[in-house]
């Protein structure tokens, strides 16, 4: 008997009926056509299928879709801002952190959840975090370098986003002072 599933994927709400045995990865790829999430080992061993559910990285091949009912899912398709790649995606490209790219969407989703939690990780923390993400091309060093680079990019982006706000605040203050007749 099919059951109702309500989920938010990359900011869009969906509602449909599925067989209870359906896995999250099947909903993403087959029902929603979001094929950026890859299914490789299909046995919870390679992490290529990693997506983010309510802020946490999980393996979509090993979760019943109905257990994600009412939750928010982010896939690789939800990262880029229109045509501008997310800093983690760009860092992976610039650091040659993939060749065939099959594991990359899972890697990047894990990195997204990780850097949200730990914006300035040590190399050892990155190694511990990425353990379980199997890549047969790069030898992992470039992936670690890409993550370090992505962390820097995200921090400078955050700093850049704060800057205009500070300026705004200052000018606002100045206006107030000017109005009260004490300033400048």
């Amino acid at each position, binding site marked *: *008997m099919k*059951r109702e599933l309500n989920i938010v994927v990359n900011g869009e709400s969906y509602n449909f009926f599925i*067989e*209870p*045995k359906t*896995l999250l990865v099947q909903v993403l790829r087959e029902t929603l056509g979001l094929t950026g999430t890859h*299914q490789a080992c*299909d*046995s*919870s061993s390679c*992490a290529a299928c*990693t997506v983010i*559910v309510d802020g*946490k*990285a*999980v*393996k979509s091949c*090993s*979760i*019943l879709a*109905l*257990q994600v009912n009412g939750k928010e899912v982010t896939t690789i398709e939800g990262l880029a801002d229109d045509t501008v790649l997310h800093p983690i995606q760009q860092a992976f490209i610039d650091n040659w952190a993939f060749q065939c790219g099959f594991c990359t969407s899972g890697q990047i989703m*894990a990195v997204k959840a*990780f850097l949200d939690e730990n914006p300035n990780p040590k190399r050892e923390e990155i190694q*511990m*975090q990425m*353990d*379980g*993400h199997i890549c047969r091309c790069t030898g992992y060093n470039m992936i670690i370098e890409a993550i370090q680079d992505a962390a820097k990019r995200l921090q400078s982006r955050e700093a850049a986003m704060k800057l205009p706000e500070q300026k705004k605040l200052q000018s606002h203050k100045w206006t107030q002072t000017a109005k009260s007749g004490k300033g400048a």
Partner: protein
Amino acid sequence: MKTIITDFEYLPASTVEEALELLSQHKDDEYKIIAGGQSLNTAMKHRLIAPDYLIDIKGLSDLDYIKFDEKKGLKIGALATHRSLEKSQIVREKYSVLCEMEENVASVETRNWGTVVGDLCNADPAVDPAPPLIALDAKLTIASKGEERTVAAEEFAVDFFETTVQPGEMVTEIQIPVMPPNSGAYFTKYSQMLGDYALASVAVLITLDKKKEVCANARIGLAGVASAPVRAKKAEEVLKGKKITEALLAEAAEVVKTEIDPISGIEGSEDYKRELAGTLLKRVGKVALERAQKS
């Protein structure tokens, strides 16, 4: 490759009462309880298990807790994930051995969704949380409709993928007593890759006397070296009442080899695993002793 799980009737529960009611209704049926399903989903995909009914308890948020009390100790609800145990501040402060164990369980993604109790109920002979729980003298509460019983961690698993949990029952909580004074605990597992199941894993708790000279109590838990996790009571006796030295740990390591029953496999022969368990015991015992001395 795409694997497909066979059909089952899906029975979600949102409260403990609902879950116990469903269990009592279906206790004579082919059913499985699913929490995170991090082992179960794979087993169902490979058709090792094909239940007619799947009772989903992932939604039992009232059992998703980790609580500490200075007198009663630690309580881990059945729906607490591996990751929440690993990241719990109070657990790191009071039972750091549990966090150290968790850091090496599968991968972060699996720990984010899989539960500690579910892992124990899956009862892989190399299950990671079992040795430290045995060393820490943990107990599990098993509930059925209108009833509740408690079982010691070392008696929970009885054979390969088999536990003491009977049809109609489910585990609701793990209880761990307060660490005795002058105690130290440590855990190590040996596996081919970080996060893999252990070839052998050992946890040791050492409690020293008031002067911190003599071993007042010792508890040793192992996994991966028999059809179910083991408590090495004879090796514990070797340590009790004596000043722990490297020679005494070596003696205990010889005894522990007689208390386990590893099976040969592609990753190591029976003899190799026996030696490994002994070596790990010496290493782990040394760290547990240092921790007890510093405590």
